């Protein structure tokens, strides 16, 4: 007989019992963080870094005495060196020289990497023709070619720009190629059935689908440009942050060496923040999806 069950259901509907006690919610390991809390933590990270640096250099000077204190200046000494170089205008000359090389080299790499990646991603023949050579060159540290580039392009700007362009080309090319190659085939089918020609499928489907990976490649490429500029400026340069560091080594100005490194860090940090912001704006659709998934 089914009546009692039905009765129970009706009774339950008429007098809803107190909702069952909810099991205590376990804190999520990677729950969302409020923006202000995140910003606070990030500021704390920077403050902590400088405090640790200061602490180590003070300890070295007065307590443990491992190095000669001249070899490990504290942040204030470096800051003073920076103020002095900035006041004379020398610092900005170095920054300008390095930035100009990085930007030129990066732009060449971006244009070449994206165009080559697009072409190779579209053609199986080209892929088989080009890929093995690229894969052979890629594991060679670009630095290995620096002396050659100086021989080929001279000790002027051209060799440094070419070197940066060469180093930054690989990540940009590879990520563009992958992005183009792995554009979701079902989106291509959908576009074709909506009347899109091959050419319009490329511009309206394949390229937007590859954009996130192209942007990642550009970000990696820009990072790499900064990475290699210092080495390029160690060899044959009379200006630039790499020159500043190398020159300071010759004259035993440890604070200036650290200053050069710190300025590169700050510029890289700033550029990355800018690029991420640009990425967020270009890829709004992706940010929306990160909330769910």
């Amino acid at each position, binding site marked *: 007989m089914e009546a009692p069950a039905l009765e129970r259901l009706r009774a339950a509907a008429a007098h809803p019992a107190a909702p069952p006690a909810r099991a205590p919610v376990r804190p999520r390991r990677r729950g969302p963080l409020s923006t202000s809390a995140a910003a606070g933590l990030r500021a704390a990270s920077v403050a902590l870094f400088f405090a640790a640096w200061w602490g180590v250099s003070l300890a070295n000077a007065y307590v443990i005495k491992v190095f000669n204190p001249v070899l490990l200046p504290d942040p204030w000494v470096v800051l003073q060196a920076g103020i002095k170089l900035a006041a004379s205008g020398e610092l900005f000359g170095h920054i300008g020289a390095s930035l100009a090389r990085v930007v030129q080299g990066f732009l060449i790499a971006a244009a070449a990497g994206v165009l080559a990646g697009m072409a190779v991603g579209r053609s199986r023949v080209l892929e088989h023709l080009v890929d093995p050579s690229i894969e052979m060159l890629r594991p060679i540290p670009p630095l290995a070619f620096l002396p050659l580039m100086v021989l080929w392009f001279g000790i002027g700007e051209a060799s440094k720009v070419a070197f940066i362009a060469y180093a930054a080309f690989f990540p940009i090319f590879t990520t563009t190629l992958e992005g183009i190659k792995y554009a*979701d085939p*079902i*989106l291509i*089918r*959908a*576009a*074709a*059935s*909506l*009347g*899109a020609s091959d050419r*319009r499928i490329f511009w*309206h*489907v394949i390229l*937007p*689908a590859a*954009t996130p990976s192209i942007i990642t490649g550009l970000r990696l490429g820009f990072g790499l440009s900064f990475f290699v500029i210092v080495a390029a400026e160690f060899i044959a340069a009379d200006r630039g942050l790499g020159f500043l560091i190398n020159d300071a080594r010759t004259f035993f100005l440890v604070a200036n060496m650290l200053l050069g490194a710190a300025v590169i860090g700050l510029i890289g940090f700033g550029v990355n923040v800018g690029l991420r912001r640009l990425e967020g704006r270009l*890829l*709004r*659709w*992706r940010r*929306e*999806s990160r*909330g*769910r*998934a």
Partner: protein
Amino acid sequence: MVEPKIVVEAVSKTYDPDVLALAEVSLDLAERSFTCLLGPSGCGKSTLLNVIAGFVEPTTGRVLVDGREVVRPGADRGVVFQEYALFPWRTAVENVEFGPLMRGLARPERRRTAERYLGLVGLGEHGSKYPAELSGGMKQRVAIARALANDPSVLLMDEPFGALDAQTREVMQEELLRIWQQDKKTVVFVTHSISEAVFLADRIVVMGTRPGRIKEVIDVPLDHPRERSTPEFVALERALKGLVREEVARLGII
């Protein structure tokens, strides 16, 4: 006699030399008919749909739509996929605008068209959302609006409701019939759900496995709207279940 809208002429497809995905299938589909291709996985129903869409080239035979041989995908045959296949970088209304954009319509006109079709599928308020912000049912509504916005004469649907939960699925079936009755396209609808086929189709093409082929074609004598609990509905479901079970049995243990 009226010329059929879609003619499938002795189409077969082999993906690799030993596997016959589809063996000499012939089928005529009338204009404004609603046909379900029903069968277990591996019966070639999606392959047949992909051949009609122009995504897959048949090994032998050909498909004619309006008397012209299908050689590539085209705007006359709208397709709705199980995976929605919405462009994630385009908002709902921009997705629906895609077909009109390809046709070269001016911006205000294609926006108007897109909004009209979004309204038709009940998403007028959600045009500015990105696909990632929509539920599965809403995504499939956008995909249907996108296919219809091109005003194709044929609508090809490949298990469009397969990824939806049971409740949403029934709502979407009713919505699809409502839309179809307003504007009767020739619909080819692939499904492995017997109940879905009986609820929607004028004609059910039951497909068999190994090789993929047509096992039986059944005209559904029921009027719309159909009620799933009527004896006629249930009897038809049972008969189809018998046919499909035989094919599943041929696949061995699953």
